[in-house]
């Protein structure tokens, strides 16, 4: 089963697919998929993300294999839904998408052994975990300014039940920028697989329903600019669409100090 959370006509609804371009709301209405506001498909708890978890991407970024997964956390404001817009700051020179399989926890997990781990998954969705490389610094890298930016982690469109995806997931994953394919991989190539990650994390951090693990991205990241449409696609999960927006749309023009002055006078 696939479920979404959308806002329509003044309320938030659960929705399911209803044909090519339509969705069915929980109150029975069938509406166009472009006529709703798509939210992340579940109420997210802790947002956990992996870096360098595909060997080819690590190589692309010139990193050696690790003995422990590179894990970082994000704040909740990073999340947006399908068809959302992500801001590219005017001073960025390299902002890239990262198409990732997102694993959503369904049952509390603490000290879970890898053989039991998959039973703690509620389902899967697609993540587009943007990074702005200009802001990378070598202290607690990747730092939050790169990876926990407002609206820079899209999730959706659907939460697909774990029961509908063969475990472990071996799903083709692709990104298209303005219709051109730029990224291609398969979730079977994770360096640290999902069962390992749940075992590893739950040994020191209790996982709760709604917590989500973004499992990393394969090679093929390129710079995207204002106005670009970025589509992340994972076999069986759907297509997650995002648009790159400029500073102006967010009321930000010029430098931080100019902005401060502008806001003060407003």
């Amino acid at each position: 089963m696939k479920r979404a959370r959308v806002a329509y006509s003044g309320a938030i609804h659960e929705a399911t697919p209803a044909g090519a371009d339509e969705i069915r709301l929980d109150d029975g209405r069938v509406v166009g998929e472009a006529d709703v506001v798509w939210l992340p498909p579940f109420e997210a708890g802790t947002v956990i993300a992996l870096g360098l978890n595909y060997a080819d991407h690590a190589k692309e970024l010139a990193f050696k294999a690790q003995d422990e997964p590179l894990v970082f956390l994000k704040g909740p404001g990073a999340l947006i839904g399908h068809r959302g817009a992500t801001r590219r700051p005017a001073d960025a020179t390299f902002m890239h998408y990262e198409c990732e399989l997102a694993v959503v926890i369904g049952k509390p997990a603490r000290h879970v052994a890898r053989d039991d781990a998959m039973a703690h998954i509620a389902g899967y969705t697609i993540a587009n975990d943007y990074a702005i490389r200009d802001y990378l610094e070598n202290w607690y890298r990747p730092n939050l300014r790169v990876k926990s930016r407002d609206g820079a982690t899209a999730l959706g469109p659907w939460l697909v039940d774990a029961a509908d995806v063969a475990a472990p997931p071996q799903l083709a994953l692709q990104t298209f920028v303005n219709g051109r394919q730029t990224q291609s991989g398969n979730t079977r190539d994770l360096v640290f697989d999902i069962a390992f990650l749940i075992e590893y994390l739950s040994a020191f951090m209790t996982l709760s329903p709604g917590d989500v693990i973004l499992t990393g991205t394969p090679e093929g990241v390129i710079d995207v600019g204002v106005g670009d449409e970025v589509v992340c696609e994972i076999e069986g999960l759907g297509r997650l669409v995002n648009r790159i927006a400029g500073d102006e749309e967010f009321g930000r023009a010029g430098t931080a100090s100019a902005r401060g002055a502008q806001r003060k006078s407003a």
Partner: protein
Amino acid sequence: MSSPRIEVAPFRLSGTVYATLLNHRHSLASLGDAVSAKPYQGAPKNVVLAVKPRPALLPPGSNVLVDDESQELEVGAALGLVIGTTACAVAATDALGHVAGFVVACDCTLPRTSHYRPQIRAMARDASCAFGAEVVARERAGDPDSLSIRVFVDDELVRSTSTADHVRSAAQLIADISDFMTLRPGDVVLTGSAPDGARVRNGATVAIEIESVGRLETRVAMATRAAIADPTRSR
């Protein structure tokens, strides 16, 4: 977590807790020449933060937990800024207006030798970050950038510092964070702790006093290793 007492909006610490790292002027100094060498290749330019996930947070009066892996913890004594109103891209001159009050925090981590990676295994452990019993309204506490912080282990004074030693002031932190990440009512920003915090083990009592804000007391106890009981499982 059940919240410290807070008599001003937002009334509950319902949001996200962010810990500022390397914000004490001794933090980088203590690393010496390593700062300019690999992997760091220079001092950090922007604010460095860590997210404290919910299971790490402890309500007042609870024990900080250690387990077989975390025999010894490093105590990070920090002033917490409790956000009162939404702060997005605010200027430093306006930033303190978004702070409802202050709270004492005890952010315990595994001791680290490297600051290169986020190391959440060291920084985001269950039951590792305790809060004081009360959030003191900003108007009552005064200037957040000149408060003494004292750490006691088993009633002995072991560390003494001041928020005056911070690289970024409270206002500058709010400004720099809110430039890329909106702070919401109920969020907490820990303003950073001194390097080489006190080390504690099972059975220790830790007290942190921050001038004008209050005193936090917590005990270090051994966690039980039991997995969470799962009634839906058959075996």
